[in-house]
């Protein structure tokens, strides 16, 4: 268990050290307790990191939206309005927790947690950096089925959203939930197909392996001419999957008031909010790791894992900026157009690209072309 994960073993070492202060040793705890304890601490840390990141994202989103609309955005609370989201969080926490009459209370309460849990859990399989000494990725759980796990676990979010929409006893919410079901489930196909391509090239489902494979500027995006198109499909499908504009139909505020979370308030609402940003980060992280070399900066970053983490973060932030940029520019599609785009455009293209990449790799066209060039 601990051999697979640098983060978990680091946590175990830390517990060991703390217990050493009282003259004890980690071995007094049975192994299952050790695992659960370390896992809980890691989960708590992850949750905290995501919550913190969401604070920053919300601020970023507002500032960016402001500037794109010739406004300033929040600039009153704290320097550059940085504390505005903190203030808003406190406001949300203080809000009355309203459960509408006729709502299914259990599902209503459970839905936001389920929605958030799926996305947060997926981060366990994301390598945040690379440990050059050990030659291992730094992540919570280096599972062999990495990306498979992520796509599977993120899909639980749909269930949460449908639960939220149905339990709210509100027709607008129901519309939102139904749209979400239709949209996210269908966009999982192009998303999965476009993820299959890097998996095919790396030859491993683990994201850690992908990080290793791309060290030294050998990014997957340069590997063959199809990759940019694959990345584009991935990005569009990813946008649809995390319900960002122009695919924000489940919450389309000008049509469905607020979609599936119309009836939510306070903390529960903020869970949905966090989920949106968390899944944006997830998609961006996968994009950065699978296409743009994870924490690699053409080998310039040296062997410091901290710098690699910073580089990865930077790539994620760029991707999130683009997502925000798209949101504040484009109008929203209609649900049938979203479905048409998913099934009639993205899926066939993704299939074609998958085929192309396979053929390319099969015949080693990279090397052959290189030979051709160097000869002439």
């Amino acid at each position, binding site marked *: 268990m601990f051999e697979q994960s640098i983060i978990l073993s680091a946590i175990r070492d830390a517990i060991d050290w703390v217990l050493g202060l009282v003259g004890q040793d980690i071995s007094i705890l049975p192994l299952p307790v050790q695992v659960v304890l370390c896992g809980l601490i890691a989960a708590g840390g992850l949750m905290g990191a995501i919550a913190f990141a969401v604070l920053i994202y919300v601020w970023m989103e507002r500032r960016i939206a402001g500037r794109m609309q010739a406004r300033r955005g929040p600039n009153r609370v704290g320097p550059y309005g940085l504390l505005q989201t903190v203030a808003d969080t406190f406001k949300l926490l203080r809000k009355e927790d309203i459960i509408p009459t006729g709502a299914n209370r259990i599902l209503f309460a459970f839905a936001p947690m389920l929605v958030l849990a799926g996305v947060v859990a997926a981060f366990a399989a994301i390598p945040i950096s690379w440990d050059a000494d050990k030659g291992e990725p730094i992540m919570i759980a280096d599972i062999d089925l990495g990306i498979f796990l992520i796509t599977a676990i993120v899909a639980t979010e749909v269930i949460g959203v449908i639960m939220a929409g149905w339990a709210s006893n509100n027709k607008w919410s129901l519309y939102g939930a139904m749209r979400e079901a239709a949209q996210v489930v269908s966009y999982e196909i192009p998303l999965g197909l476009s993820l299959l391509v890097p998996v095919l090239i790396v030859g491993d489902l683990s994201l850690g392996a992908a990080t290793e494979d791309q060290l030294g500027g050998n990014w997957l995006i340069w590997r063959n001419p199809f990759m940019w198109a694959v990345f584009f499909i991935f990005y569009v499908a990813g946008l649809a999957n995390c319900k960002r504009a122009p695919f924000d139909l489940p919450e389309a505020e000008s049509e469905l008031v607020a979609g599936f979370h119309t009836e939510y308030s306070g903390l529960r609402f903020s869970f949905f909010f966090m989920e949106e940003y968390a899944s944006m980060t997830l998609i961006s992280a996968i994009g950065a790791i699978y296409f743009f070399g994870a924490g690699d900066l053409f080998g310039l970053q040296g062997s410091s894992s901290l710098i690699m983490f910073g580089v990865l973060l930077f790539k994620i932030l760029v991707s999130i900026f683009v997502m925000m940029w798209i949101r504040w520019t484009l109008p929203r599609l209609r649900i049938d157009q979203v479905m048409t*785009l998913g099934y009639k455009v993205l899926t066939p293209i993704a299939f074609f690209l998958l085929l192309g990449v396979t053929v390319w790799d099969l015949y080693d066209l990279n090397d052959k072309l290189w030979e051709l060039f160097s000869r002439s």
Partner: protein
Amino acid sequence: MVETFKDFGFAVKTAIKGMGITLKTFFEKPVTLQYPEERPEVDSRYRGIHFLEQEKCISCKVCALACPVDCIHIESELPEKGLYDWDRFDIDYGLCMFCELCCFPCPTNCIHMGKEFDFSRFSRMDLVRNMLTWEGVSPAQKKEVDGIAAEKAAKKAAAAEAKKKAAQDEPKDTQDEKKDGE
């Protein structure tokens, strides 16, 4: 199928064009005014809270009559020609719609629309604003009015005295008359 792909390509192209515009705006200077710190320059014609040149006002109430919502309340006494004893000149800003109709017909041109615009209060009663710079009689005219009042009072007193005297005299007369009558 081809149509759909074409459409998709078109959508991407136009989307990129639109994104160029938002990016351009992103680097432009925002136009927002930082309100409480930066106050907008309002024009001299701005129609804000009224101001009244009380020394010119002749309390003719034409403005109150011209107001479509009847939100000007004027009460004053006219002890002497040209002198005013002001009780009240209120404008209820809960009603006023800043139409300027009260300012046009004023014969002495003494009520104007001012530049003040942020006039929010917690209760409706607080929205009634007293336009008077002074209540009662103008300080400049106070002496004069006092003088007139004193004169009046003196006159009154004299009159009363005279009356008293007359009254004192009267019964005799009547008695005399009565006597005469008898």
